């Protein structure tokens, strides 16, 4: 017995120039906020960009973007709707605001199903918001989508960075490309940058703690005016 869906995934992502997975060892370090802002800023620079929320059990990007009352179009597949200039996809279209508990194999099934039916079309960037850690999402992305580049988010905390160390070594072992590390909510005296460079990984930049960024959740115009967004803009220059 063969799962036919797997064979079509490469075609479905075939017209996407770069797939960037925003990853971390821990939760709460700012992946979703960074992934959303990054996607919005790329779109504002005139790049055709998609955003895919792969954190099926705790999706958050719809909340950051303030997505309401939209629904993907079904046309011989699924076409993600355009939201704030982004092709945006999340399971919240279907799970509404309910919790959706998923164990490993079921996560993979949902992952394969979505990647085999979503028609992204031609994109310069697909930004993927990942759940934390070295789990199903990361392994499935490497196994089935193959071409994703990993952007790793950490805070200045040694506790967060300790998990990033493992993440980097695992990605290296899997021969998955690492785009670089972003240090979010940077604290004074942090040694993350030196540590990252010592591991031979790109340091993409830092984002300060922005005390007002929370006020802009759900309001994209406000979000793009924040110090947080300014910092992400600088990071984009290092990515290209």
């Amino acid at each position, binding site marked *: *017995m*063969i*799962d*036919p*869906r*797997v*064979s*079509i995934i490469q*075609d479905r992502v075939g017209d996407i120039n770069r797939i960037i997975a925003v990853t971390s060892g821990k939760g709460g370090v700012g992946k979703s906020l960074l992934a959303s802002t990054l996607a919005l800023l790329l779109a504002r620079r005139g790049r055709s960009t998609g955003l895919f929320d792969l954190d*099926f059990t705790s999706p958050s990007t719809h909340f950051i973007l303030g997505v309401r009352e939209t629904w993907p179009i*079904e046309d*011989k*597949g*699924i076409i993600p709707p355009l939201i704030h200039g982004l092709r945006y996809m999340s*399971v919240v*279209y*279907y*799970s*509404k605001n*309910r*919790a*959706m*508990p*998923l*164990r490993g*194999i*079921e*996560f993979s*099934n*949902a992952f394969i*199903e*979505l990647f*085999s*039916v979503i*028609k992204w079309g031609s994109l310069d960037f697909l930004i993927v918001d990942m759940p934390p850690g070295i789990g199903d999402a990361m392994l499935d992305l490497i196994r089935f989508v193959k071409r994703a580049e990993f952007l790793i988010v950490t805070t200045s905390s040694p506790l967060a960075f300790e998990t990033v160390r493992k993440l980097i070594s695992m990605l290296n072992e899997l021969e998955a490309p690492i785009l670089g590390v972003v240090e979010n909510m940077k604290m004074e005296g942090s040694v993350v940058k030196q540590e990252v460079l010592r591991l031979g990984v790109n340091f993409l930049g830092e984002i300060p703690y922005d005390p007002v960024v929370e006020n802009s959740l759900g309001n994209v115009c406000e979000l793009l005016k924040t110090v947080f967004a300014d910092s992400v803009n600088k990071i984009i220059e290092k990515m290209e």
Partner: protein
Amino acid sequence: MHEWALAESVIKTVLKVAEENSIDKVTEVRIRIGEMQQLEHDVFKSALLCLKPDELKDAEFIVEIAKTKLRCGVCNHEWLFQKEGFEEDVLESIHFLPEVSHAYIKCPICGSPDFEIIEGRGIWVESVKGVRGSDRP
């Protein structure tokens, strides 16, 4: 409907299996679809026919629907998925992505949302039959 997207993946897989097994003429393809997916049988079959390339012109596609069996992780109760009793938009969501059922279904015995889909999820190419080329070494 994503019947088409899935049909496309079936065609691609069949072509690949035929090539890997040096089958020159595919005569029969058996496909199983989990009931929970609620694929429109007719739409799916007509998609297969439309998408069928010349290489597969002699192939007959047999599509079977498999019952979807669920098992509770807490009390081990097993039961079959039935679409009766769900709202239309919920069924539509489950049709699109069966895992979404985890947001809507609970164990009928103990009420836990921690269940597994143990049978009849997704779509499977069960067998590809055909004739091998006689001029091959």
